[in-house]
């Protein structure tokens, strides 16, 4: 099978989907190719923090300025993906007061509104925080849902003719006379092969960018930097809390939807797939986190997870936190003499749109397309009408409707209709995260949905307190009627459960240990999973 497009984008993370949307809005035909499910990589394995830029203000003014500009743009174009809860930077006893002064003026220079606030007030509304806080500043940090931003990009791009191919690995990049001419794909689920002819290839593979560049014989030195994060069972505070000191491990708490995320660590790894959180990392994070939240050991952890940051610093041997969080757009025509191949590396989630804009500018220039970037103005998602929300509340309850509306966007109306017509569809399959059967059915029918994990990423099913113990088998039961979910039940379940266990194992104590015992009882004793066919 052969397809044609002007541009093939490799990598279905925030940057890749951002580029897809940007190109589509400029009228350039593009196909995005992703080796797994969308957002399975670093774009779903971060704090969920939309930086105000405060974190980088002292060390990297350029990155800080980019952050605050992008922060304001995303709040405007994608309000349904963002919780504008605001952040705090807290100085604690023993922290360097001179750094605080430096930080305050650095924020002012970068255009970040950092306003000092009363410490007692902060403690009163956030009783989990330590009374050793000496100063506190409010900044416009936000919590952001990486999944939703990604799907926002994809939905918008699709409306403008763009295509997305998931679970397909690029096996070869064709070149002729020093120009890229197409890519060869292997579908990991069906084994099918496919060729896409194109004029340009954009390498937006993040932590995998080095491997992609190697296919055309080029070297792109991406430093793979693993960051581990912890997810707590509930919101421990009502604002994002950053430690006011030079950026280090375990110094940001982000209340995010129903949970709180604490992170991160920083460690160079060999492989982009090295995203297994380790128990020692968890213990290290808790130890540092305890300084800001003294009772941290009494809060329940539901899991740990890790992402691999793709850092880029040409011609330097720096690693970890000393590497810039800035991004680089590599024009391989200029650098290596290969026409039609561009790599976008480094950066961070907050600036994905800007990275996409710069990349698309370069692509458009090379394709001689004269169309400006529109992603900073065009809304990413349309707000869900009040009337629909009201109808949703009747079938799913207040939080169920609100969360489903945020996740589903334009598709919310269809899911409500199903639930209104069929009472069975109103059943809540994932009770921890309020995901209805109607939503699960809707998502399962999506062409990009092939596993329980895909449904999980699109709905949050299995991401709450019980980590899939109850919703896992319920969802599987509903999938029974779809032909495309015809593989063995045991395989679906064990892949899903093992992925959950990967994050649970390093935090296996206290209530989560009881939870795990319950899960074990249900799957191994009640369902006899070992004997399941």
């Amino acid at each position, binding site marked *: 099978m052969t397809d044609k497009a002007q541009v093939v984008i490799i990598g279905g993370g925030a940057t890749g989907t951002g580029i897809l949307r940007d190109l589509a809005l400029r009228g350039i035909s593009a196909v995005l190719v992703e080796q797994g499910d969308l957002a399975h990589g670093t774009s779903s394995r971060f704090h969920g923090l939309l930086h105000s830029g405060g974190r980088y203000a002292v060390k990297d003014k350029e990155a800080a300025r980019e952050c605050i500009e992008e922060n304001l743009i995303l709040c405007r174009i994608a309000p349904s993906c963002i919780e504008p809860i605001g952040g705090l930077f807290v100085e604690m006893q023993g922290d360097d007061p001179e750094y605080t002064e430096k930080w305050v003026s650095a924020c002012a220079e970068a255009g970040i509104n950092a306003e000092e606030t009363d410490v007692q007030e902060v403690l009163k509304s956030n009783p*989990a925080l330590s009374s050793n806080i000496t100063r506190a500043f409010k900044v416009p940090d936000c919590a952001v849902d990486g999944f939703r931003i990604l799907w926002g990009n994809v939905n918008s791009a699709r409306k403008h003719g763009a295509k997305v191919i998931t679970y397909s690995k690029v096996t070869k990049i064709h070149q002729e006379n020093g120009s890229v001419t197409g890519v060869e794909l292997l579908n990991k689920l069906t084994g099918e092969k496919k060729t896409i002819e194109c004029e340009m290839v954009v390498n937006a593979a993040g932590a995998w960018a080095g491997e992609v560049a190697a296919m055309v014989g080029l070297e792109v030195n991406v430093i793979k930097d693993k960051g581990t994060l912890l997810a707590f069972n*509930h919101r421990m505070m009502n604002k994002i809390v950053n430690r006011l000191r030079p950026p280090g491990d375990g110094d940001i708490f982000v209340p995010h*939807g129903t949970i709180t995320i604490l992170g991160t660590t920083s460690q160079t790894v060999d492989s982009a797939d090295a995203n297994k959180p380790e128990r020692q990392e968890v213990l290290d994070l808790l130890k540092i986190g305890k300084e800001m939240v003294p009772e941290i050991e009494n809060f329940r952890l539901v899991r740990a997870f890790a992402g691999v940051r793709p850092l880029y610093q040409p011609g330097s041997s720096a690693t970890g936190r000393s590497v810039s969080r800035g991004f680089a757009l590599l024009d391989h025509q200029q650098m290596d003499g290969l026409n039609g191949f561009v790599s976008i590396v480094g950066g961070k989630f907050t600036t994905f749109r800007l990275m996409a804009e710069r990349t698309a500018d370069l692509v458009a220039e090379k394709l001689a397309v004269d169309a400006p970037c529109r992603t900073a103005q065009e809304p990413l998602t349309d707000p869900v009408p009040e009337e629909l929300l009201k109808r949703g509340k009747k079938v799913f309850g*207040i*939080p169920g409707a609100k969360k489903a509306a945020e996740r589903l966007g334009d598709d919310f109306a269809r899911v409500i209709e199903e639930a209104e017509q069929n009472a069975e569809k109103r059943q*809540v399959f994932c*009770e921890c995260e*309020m995901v209805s059967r109607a939503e699960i059915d809707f998502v399962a029918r999506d062409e990009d949905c092939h596993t329980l994990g895909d449904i999980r990423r699109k709905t949050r099913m299995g991401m709450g307190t019980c980590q899939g113990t109850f919703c896992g088998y319920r969802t599987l039961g509903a999938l029974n009627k779809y032909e495309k979910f015809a593989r063995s039940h045991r395989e679906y379940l064990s892949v899903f459960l093992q992925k959950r266990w990967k994050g649970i194992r390093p935090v296996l104590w206290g209530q989560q240990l009881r939870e795990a015992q319950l899960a074990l009882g249900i799957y191994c004793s009640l369902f006899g999973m070992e004997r399941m066919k």
Partner: protein
Amino acid sequence: MNKTNELALDNCIKCSICVTHCPVAKVTDKFAGPKQNGPDLERFRLEEPLAVHPSIEYCSNCKNCEVACPSGVSISTMNCRAKGEYVAKNGAPLRDRLLANVELMGDFARLMPGLVNWGGKVKLFRELAERIFNISADMTLPQYASKTFYELYRENKPPVSAKKVVYFPGCYVTYNTPEVGLALVKVMAHNGVEVLVEEFNCCGVPLIANGLLADAKNNARNNMRKLEKYIDAGYQIVTSCPSCNLALRREYGELFDMEKAHRLAEQVIDVFEYLQVLAENGELKTDFKHLSLTVGYHQPCHLKAVGCGVPSKGILDLVPGVEVNDLDAGCCGLSGSYGFKKEKYAISQEIGRQLFQAVKKKGLNRVITECGMCQLQIHHGTGAEVYHPIQVLAEAYGLGSDIK
């Protein structure tokens, strides 16, 4: 939200034992169950205080969820607060305000109890009330006494004694079954204990169950003000109603964060718990007469929730000729105002069916239970005569003539 509750929230492992013990969820799918509106949605309420499932109104506040929870989660308290938030935002129907305002209804009825009692039995009036207020025309209404307990107490003051307790009679004894309160006063006097009373307000449980938390807190504050001097002087506060006991012992602290609530909790005691202590100290009079009485015993849900066991059993076992059959058939289903509501009457009767069958199967025509509302429901569902156990004890001491 205070820290302890947050931590209890983390204890929920979603085992759903609470759901399997919920009498409402057992008979209808209109209620999403205690887990959903309790610990599940509590996580959402930390972000959005109004995150409530509208089916919360089907919670009957029986507290079986909290009793059953093996993880120590305050499920029912979470549900009560959530219902309070829901009602504060959406308002409560006039019907709920009426039914919850037990004191107001009692004060109205005592103006002409005969007329009210008669009216409550006229089908036409009941059908009108059902059409206008959505109050079930089928549920038996409580009968109002011609004099309140407080009036009768003043007419029959117990002898002064050095040993004193304070009695919190509750609305049902005050307005509907003052004979229960009188029996209690006599039994205590017989054992050398003087019972003091004060005109308390409704404990607040009916208001809490209807989500009217602000009004309930008001009552709690008034009662606290009246109780304060007794608490400070170290008096024990005796109850005969399990719901009042639960309110004073637990809910004033858990729901309203009241100062001194923990001291109140230590001093509140069920009348039979009190008598049991007397018995253990060898101070209980045992001059019982032979009664030859066979009764069924129903344990009210709120007595379970208090967690004091069944103290009346130990005492009644001492009375010669009394045979108490534990009915052990779960919630009666009425849950205060719940079963009077038109849309919930059928649910309420369905919940109570097991209990009614147990009474009938054992061929009992007399039942004892501590809760006034359970008394009413059992009578409604079986036709049996239903008494408070203190009335049996008064009879055994030769102090009463209530048992027919």
